[in-house]
């Protein structure tokens, strides 16, 4: 069932106060790192834990930290990514608003490990309350001497800045986020150089997701081996899943990696809403390919989901029941991605616009023969050809919807109406 590590005290309303946090053993890990460990040892421990980036791509955190060039004299920065805008995802928010000191401590330890003296947490603009909680936590940490100059008398200095965004999905993408912090328009940068080499203000920068960093204090307290003892061979530890859609008990659940999807949906989520039949599952946030009902026993970990043809992504599981039109789902999603494309590169910028026009005319019952093939061809012209992964993210769910539910798409075009709904959602 649930394995509450990051979320252990999430239901304690006082956890947001530093005293309560301290009484639960808070900032012990930071103290340990500062007083008993060298930065390289912290990195080693995190490498050993095998914790992978929880922002979507699943890149091993310790390995990323190791990419900072040793001989670069410029300052280094840590950026904690709290932009959380992928439809369906709502896990970082919980951590930031209910256990903000856990995030601060994770950022502090990680900053120490990579040799940074200035850390930013970038929070999406709509998250006013989580941002307030984070600000309060940072303030308290300064007051208690966990941030600022000469922390705990160790000579280590660290400042932390809470930065709120303006409400653009693309600012969750790390290089756009760096532009946004610099005061530029949120637009993705070409890579290389990767942020670890030249990121914020062209200085070495590590960007990690909130959940990734929140795991770090537990790894330092209990050891990398302890963390690695949980989960599967390639997916260690626990992960927060955001369950939404047509289930009885939507919400966030912390599970050990490798827990079957059925446990999440049926045991924790209470099964399908109003007893309807399951039609499809988007397992890792809106940009991941869909799964079919017969795949409900797939294990929730990086490798199993890849094998099943999808991705763990950010861990946002969206459950779709039989009443839902898959063309309509695709239309909602492409509308989102078209709207959120930053406009930098041609295939994503113009391609998403064209796709939205095509898909919504099919949805409206005005589709033309050949439209599906055209959509597939356009998806091919976007996939793998853009500056940042938003382009891929936009086309993956569409391709998968067509692949798995082609009959619905064809029905829409041939019969000028929907297979599952008597009325069109948008007329």
């Amino acid at each position, binding site marked *: 069932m649930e394995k509450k590590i990051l979320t252990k005290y999430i239901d304690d309303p006082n956890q947001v106060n530093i005293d309560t946090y301290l009484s639960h053993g808070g900032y012990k890990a930071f103290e340990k790192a500062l007083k008993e460990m060298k930065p390289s040892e912290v990195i080693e421990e995190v490498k050993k834990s095998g914790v992978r980036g929880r922002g979507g791509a699943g890149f091993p955190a310790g390995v990323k930290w190791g990419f900072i060039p040793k001989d670069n004299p410029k300052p280094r920065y840590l950026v904690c990514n709290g932009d959380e805008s992928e439809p369906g995802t709502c896990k970082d928010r919980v951590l930031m608003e209910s256990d903000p000191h856990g995030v601060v401590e994770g950022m502090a330890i990680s900053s120490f490990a990579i040799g940074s003296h200035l850390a930013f947490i970038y929070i999406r603009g709509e998250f006013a309350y989580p941002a307030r909680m984070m600000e309060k936590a940072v303030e308290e940490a300064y007051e208690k001497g966990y941030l600022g100059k000469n922390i705990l008398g160790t000579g280590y200095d660290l400042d932390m800045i809470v930065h709120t965004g303006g409400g*653009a999905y*693309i600012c969750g993408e790390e290089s756009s986020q760096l532009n946004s912090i610099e005061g530029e*328009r949120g*637009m993705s940068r*070409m890579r*290389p150089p990767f942020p670890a080499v030249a990121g914020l203000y062209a200085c070495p920068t590590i960007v990690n997701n909130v959940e990734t960093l929140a795991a770090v204090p537990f790894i330092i307290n209990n050891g990398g081996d302890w963390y690695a003892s949980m989960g599967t061979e390639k997916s260690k530890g626990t992960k927060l899943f955001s369950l939404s859609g047509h289930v009885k008990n939507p919400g966030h659940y912390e599970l050990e990696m490798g827990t079957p999807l059925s446990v999440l949906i049926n045991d924790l989520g209470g099964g399908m809403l109003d007893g309807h039949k399951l039609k499809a599952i988007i397992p890792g946030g809106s940009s991941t390919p869909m799964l079919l009902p017969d795949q409900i026993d797939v294990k929730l970990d990086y490798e199993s989901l890849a094998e099943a043809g999808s991705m763990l992504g950010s861990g946002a599981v969206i459950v779709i029941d039989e009443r839902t039109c898959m063309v309509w789902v695709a239309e909602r999603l492409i509308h989102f991605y*078209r*709207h*959120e*494309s*930053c*406009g*930098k*590169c*041609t*295939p994503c*910028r*113009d*391609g*998403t*616009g*064209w796709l939205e*026009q095509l898909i919504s005319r099919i949805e409206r019952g005005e589709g*033309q023969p050949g439209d599906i093939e*055209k959509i597939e061809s356009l998806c091919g*012209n976007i996939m*793998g*050809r*853009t*500056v940042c992964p938003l382009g891929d993210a936009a086309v993956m769910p569409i391709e998968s919807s067509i692949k798995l539910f082609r009959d619905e798409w064809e029905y829409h075009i041939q019969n000028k109406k929907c297979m599952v709904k008597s009325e069109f959602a948008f007329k």
Partner: protein
Amino acid sequence: MSDDSNNINLTIDGQQVSVPRGTTVLEAARSIRIDIPTFCWHPKLKPAGSCRICYVEIEKARTLMVSCATDVAPDMVVHTASEKVLQGRKAVLEFMLMNHPLDCPTCDKGGECDLQNLTFKHGVDDSRFDFKKYRHIRDKNSTFDDLRIGSEIIRNQNRCILCYKCVRANKDIFGEQDLGAYQRGNITEINTPPGEQVDSLYSGNLVEICPVGALTNTDWRYKIRVWNTQTVDSVCSYCADGCNLTLWKDKQKIYRATSRRNDNIDEGWICDVGRYGYQVPMAEDRLTTPLIKKGDSQVPATWEEALGLISEKFKKIKDERGGVCIGGLISPNLDSLSLHTFSKFFRMVLNSNNVDFRAGYKMLPEKADDLYSKLTSLPFKISDIEKSDLILVLDSDLTKEHPIVNLRVRKAVTQKNASLFALNPITTQTGGIATDEMVYNIGTLHALLNGLCISLIDQNLTQYENARDLKNKLSPNTIEEASRISGIDVARINSLAKAITEVKNISLIAGELLTSSINREQLSGAIINLCLLAGIFDKGQVGVLSQAANSKGAEKLAVMPHLSERSILKIKQIWDKYPDNDGLALDQMIRSSIKEELDSMFIIGSNLMLEYPDGAVVKEGLEKLDFLVVADICETETTQIADVVLPLSTWVEYDSSFVNLESVEQKFKAAIKPVGFSLPAYQIINKIAQGFKTPLFETIDELIPEIKTLLQPDDSQNSFENCAIEYIEEKQNPEFEIPLLITNELHHFGYFTEKSNSLSNFCSEAFLEISPGLAEKLDVKNGSIIRVESEVGKINLPVKISEYIDNDVVRAYRNFSASPVNILQMRKRNIDRVKLTVVEGT
């Protein structure tokens, strides 16, 4: 296999190529003449990788790669025309054309549009896009979606392919913030912040860089199609940077000027003065025939009549009073042939050394081999600026004086990590990126430099052996005193001294405020001291920059009365003789005229009445002359009082050359025939010489070797000795206490650029720039009229409040004939001072 660590071998379309590490695949391919199309790539901008047209296939890579932003790697195998690449390119074009209006027949870019060209080459004829095209509508009642985003720039967003080149160049190269991308995704638009305009000095480059017709210039729009024009290689005739231009013309009309990229100088950028300056020769009111003064009016005459009269008068003066009773002034914006011929006429025909080009300087030196000339003769290269770790700018508002040098300084600082220190009496735009911009009390630069020298000595930061000896020659001679006088903290002076000694390569740049100052010699001496102490002569370059397109040429071609031994030798070498009299500098000519010792002046291309920094004195001097000959392109305040006026051709009407501030001679070609009966200056001069039966040349070819000899660089090394520098506070009349600076306005150079419509659209009226603090004190707003009054003159000017001005200084501009601000100036005053009275608040 890679042969050495710096070169990388790879294969492109089956061809082996070896290129330096860090080269992009695009550059590698182009180096072996394999063409890969691009839109968003630009040789001087960081790659953005946005347009995606430059895809290539690289073996082992999962996806198509953009060649403009992919560095070569050892043993890479690249295909630039595989089926996958061609498909990818087509797909990108298809996306770009989706919403593109395809209004090529009415688009000014037609014929030179990258999108049009690439579509012909790679595109599909039949679009699969069967929706209505998206329109960025500006005005529902208009058929066109044009939006003026700058004085001279029209935007049509529908045509924009969002390559972001304009935005990137504007920010990364020009350091401007007035253009950005708004909205997001496929409705992104290029626009200015609300209420602002793209009005920087570099704005025209944004149009030039746009690959499509999204940005167009008002001057070129709808006037002509590109295929109906011919191009001519030209050079800018305004400032001394010497940008290379292409003029686009048909018959007798020039339609536009664009950059002709020269990486040693301009790197493909030009300022708006150079871009729109071609409109001056196109002015409606050009002088087309000679005029002779008859009674109170000037009446048209033939060249024969005019030349006959001039020869007769000059001959008479020469025979009766001597050639030294005629003075000559020629504009440094004129070409080398003309400058040279002018000097030759005075020296060989009139046997006089009375030649000058320095109309705007106060108190010219009266002997040769002054310190200032020694400094200006040092070699300086614009491209070497970016090799510097530290750049020191003294007394120069670089953006206004040397727009292209300014860009190189920006590049060194923003792209190559150089540090910049700017020492100026006002805040400058360039100073915005400085490590420290020291705004010193006006007129105290040599005291500040003394402080810097003392700091080097006291902190033991110098290897100069005579340091102690030098210190005794300085006044002020303590850093505290220097700090008090200049108003710059001791700590800042000390840290600049430290910074100077810590770096390997320095560029020291000084500008107009120094050049035109009475304290020119003391300032030059102070710079020499600093260079000796900090070893700058050995580790970098010193550029006391000349101002106009051919000022450097004028110096080298000896258009000055007092010449160094070396120049005299050269002249004797080419002409066998040299007048053995002391020549008069312009200053002295005017004084001699007032004293009635000088009878006549021959002025070419200079509106001395407005240019001379003492309006009252110049008026008296010129009016007292018996015989004044003025050649110019249009009527001016100076031609109005001339006895004979000659119509002068402009640089677009003949072949010749300019010598830029680096002493590089650059040839330019005629674009059109001389307007009306006008003639190039060198022909006018020669025709007058013919009247003396001593023609200066039969064909121009005879002059070329002479010019070549004079322009040859001196190989003899200048040696420098330290100098005594004393700061003496200038006495002032307490009634007039506000210091007045007079410079060129941002979009103007000299007094003729107001004839360019485009440049006048940026600014057409003189104004007084004052600080917000002073504005508050006087209770005035932008546009309020202020009477500006000095001891010698007064003038009313509208106010403009500027963040660049510090409290106690005001600035006025010399470019507007309706507001001759030189009437406020006094030739003997180092700092002109005024009092201000509000005439009309708003």
